[in-house]
């Protein structure tokens, strides 16, 4: 079943895809614990500590594209993050 953190991950990748194209998915694949099941329909699975995987996903983009990409991730997931308990919110999205 899709969790909020799964939804957040997909939302980040899709928003990055709008800006950098399919490279967004290529970079997501490099994140340990993030498994892409169906790229076309945006189905992924987080295998492991979801909070850490999400932080690593944000960092993957930030490493290439700087702080601007951090802002994008935060902005696009605002509405989903507010439904998370405080201790489950990844640091990179606070």
């Amino acid at each position, binding site marked *: 079943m899709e969790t909020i953190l799964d939804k957040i991950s997909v939302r980040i990748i899709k928003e990055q895809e709008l*800006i*950098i194209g399919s490279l967004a998915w290529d970079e997501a694949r490099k994140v340990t614990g993030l498994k892409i099941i169906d790229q076309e329909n945006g189905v992924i699975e987080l295998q492991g500590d979801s909070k850490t995987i999400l932080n690593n996903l944000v960092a993957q983009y930030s490493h*290439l*594209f*700087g702080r601007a990409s951090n802002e994008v991730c935060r902005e696009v997931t605002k509405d989903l993050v507010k439904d998370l308990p405080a201790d489950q919110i990844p640091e990179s999205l606070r």
Partner: protein
Amino acid sequence: MTEDQSNQISSDEFKKITEDLYKKNLELVSLNKEVARLNNELSNANGQLKSLDKLKTEFLSLASHQLRSPLTSIIGYTSMLLDGSFGFIDEKQKEAIDRVFQSSRHLAKVVEDLLNVSKIEQGGLQYVMANFDFEKAAEDLVKDLSLTAEKKGLKMTFENDNKAPYMVNGDMEKIRQVILNFIDNSIKYTKEGNIKILLEKNENKIKLSIIDTGMGMSPEAREKLFQKFSRGENGKVNTGGSGLGLYLAKKIIEEGHNGKVGADSDGVGLGSTFWMELESA
């Protein structure tokens, strides 16, 4: 500088370029999203406007039809009362009934105009096209209206440029309505002086001009003249019109007959010329 240092600089520069490109792309994406949102809003607003317009036209048509029958009845019976069909009526009664009769006729004209507007807007106004003598149609109308003009102390004349025949292919009844509307307007808006109806022919065009010494109009008023519900100089002159006559005239002549209509004036108080131009048959 070592080879490593040189590579590090190069890598930093590359990262900067990549980040800059990312930011530019981000801007573009934001703009695209805004454009999409605005387009969506526009499309929704457009849809709503179309629905409202359709409703309005349907309502106009329904209301006009519902009003027509009772009006016909009022006009018919008051006319019969006036001509003595129901027996003698004294002067006071005659005056009162005549007021009812005139008001009903005016109302009937307004309803007819509204109906025609709704037909035009629904694309349903039919034209019965045939060749007819335009000069005769205009002259007959001038004769019909000359008494009305005389009662106001106006001199009304009809002239042509001696290039008969003046044959036109069109819906005679509707074109007559337009000529009637132009002459009627001239009489309404002219307090004193004269009205000249001039018929001219140039190559394959026939032009009818109604030239009066009436109240004229400003350039601003002239611009709005042929629009729906336009009512004279700032709408201040109460001439009892519906404001649809000129709008209909334009639709009938320009859309229905490929002709042209127009109005000229040297200014307020300096008279007007209303004209219509059609292709000769």
